[in-house]
């Protein structure tokens, strides 16, 4: 069924002159606003490409920065970022998956416990990243004694992406047809089998979407990392070392390093390209998984 509204059919015809001129005025405003919004964004994106693309090369991606980042590449920073992300997703994924399964499969929508958890996750999703930073610094760095480290930064980001992962996975599970649960139960399958063999595989598109969104949020994050994972731009030896994320590198080059602009542009371009790439891969993967599920 076509659910979209045939708006275009509403204009035209013989309406009174006054309403027609109002229509025309409104249409002009809407088009101008839309054009202005896209123009500003194209301006931003084209600036990134224009100033950043020149520096991009394989050696930029793997070399260490030199001269405080004005020259050289971003190799160690890419490595630190990857570590931080791996920890953030590695920790939040099991907890998020468990919570999502509980919310979608165990508690009924009216149950108080589920409602409480959902409400508190909504608040968690709105907590400003700088507050995550404060918390991460106080809890992971100081109380747990991790200091400025990749581990502390990754754990802080894990808290931040948790609500995103849970919401998306829960939606994925809710989209699984009831027939799988009924069919599984009618064959005498245990809950564990139904969950792991039937429900979770069928909910994979939601799970993948959640991981990609969480990844995007985590790799874009700066404020929560400034005082948890720190600034050090050397190659980290272990997760207990401080490590600089890509976003912090951009910030540092832009604010603290006169002449760091060119490499800041290039790093920003790398960051945006990573985001774009993961999003495209995810939507392609999501479509493929969903397609496989329905047709083949």
């Amino acid at each position, binding site marked *: 069924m076509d659910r979209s509204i045939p708006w275009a059919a509403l204009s035209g015809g013989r309406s009174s002159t006054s309403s027609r001129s109002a229509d025309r005025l409104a249409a002009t405003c*809407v088009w101008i606003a839309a054009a202005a919004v896209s123009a500003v964004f194209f301006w931003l994106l084209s600036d990134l490409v224009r100033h950043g693309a020149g520096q991009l090369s394989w050696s930029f991606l793997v070399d260490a920065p030199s001269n405080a980042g004005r020259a050289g590449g971003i190799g160690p920073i890419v490595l630190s970022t990857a570590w931080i992300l791996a920890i953030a997703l590695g920790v939040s994924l099991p907890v998020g998956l468990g919570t999502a399964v509980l919310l979608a499969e165990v508690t009924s929508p009216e149950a108080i416990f589920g409602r409480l958890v959902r409400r508190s996750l909504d608040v968690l999703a709105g907590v400003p990243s700088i507050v995550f930073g404060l918390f991460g610094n106080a809890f992971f760095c100081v109380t747990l004694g991790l200091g400025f480290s990749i581990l502390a930064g990754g754990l802080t980001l894990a808290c931040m992406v948790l609500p995103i992962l849970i919401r998306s996975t829960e939606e994925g599970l809710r989209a699984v047809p009831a027939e799988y649960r009924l069919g599984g139960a009618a064959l005498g399958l245990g809950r564990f089998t139904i969950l792991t063999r039937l429900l979770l595989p069928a909910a994979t598109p939601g799970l993948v979407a959640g991981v990609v969104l969480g990844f995007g949020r985590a790799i874009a994050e700066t404020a929560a990392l400034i005082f948890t994972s720190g600034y050090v731009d050397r190659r980290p030896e272990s997760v207990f070392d401080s490590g600089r994320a890509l976003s912090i590198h951009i910030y540092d080059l832009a604010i603290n390093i006169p002449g760091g602009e060119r490499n800041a542009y290039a790093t920003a371009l790398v960051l945006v390209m990573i985001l774009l790439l993961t999003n495209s891969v995810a939507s392609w993967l999501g479509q493929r998984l969903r397609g496989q599920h329905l047709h083949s």
Partner: protein
Amino acid sequence: MPAHRPFTIWSESYRLSRRVDWLLLWSLRLSAIVSGALVLFITIFVVAEAWPALRNIGVWRFLNDASWYPSGGADGGTFNLVPMFVGTLLTTAGAILLAAPLGVLAAIFRQAYAPPGVGRVYRWLIELLAGIPSVVYGFWGLVVLVPMIARFEPPGASLLAGILILTLMILPTTALASDAALESVPRRYVEGAAALGLGRWAALHCVALPAAGSGIATGVLLATGRALGETMAVLMVCGNVVAVPASLFDPVRTLTANIALEMAYALEDHRSALFVSGLLLLLMVSALVLAAEAVDRRQTVG
């Protein structure tokens, strides 16, 4: 058996006969408890860290001290947070005033005016922008927007720059929320409007927008929360001078920027005072989220 009812494999009344089911249930519960309690845990931690400042300095001095000079400690320093609070409010209010109408217009464009192909591309563009890191917006504002403003009215790094960059940052949020709200307006409403001979704008203005109102309002509230809590973008373009601005072209410092700038070297009461401002942010944003949910719920119920 009616298939529309919510089947769950856990509502079976029989006992958890298998040990693996029992283990599974408890590990699920444990992870849900961890996830659910996290926000409480964060609040408790922030309160605990803020407590020394609240006790030694007190709310009164956060509002009435002569200035913000916190490194002197509770006795020697001054702790007036008002300029930062005003900075946060002004940048947020300005950004919302711009981003809410623009976001709604962008959504109207996509839903009611754009040809289907253009609409898809437009949505993709907005989604892409929603994912662009705030530090990239801040950096672009710093190297492009701030020099442009400086040409008219130095120094350039100003409340205006902060408002403009924040507007760009939260525009995708308001646009996507309005888009979803408009999309969920029942088709029959608009068909009814068409049957009455209303034009496109009249149908939008009189029927679709009121029906989508609470969805749009929810989106605006959530976007306000984002703007309040945003750190990097404002930090990089606002100039960060601790003073209540007299004009749009004056530099300001927000609560978030203040934390980011001073946390690295803050000690004792100073550090604790930064947690006080973090607590303030946390409370404001939580109130907004709960308000957004209340709006959303009232709409679904009523």
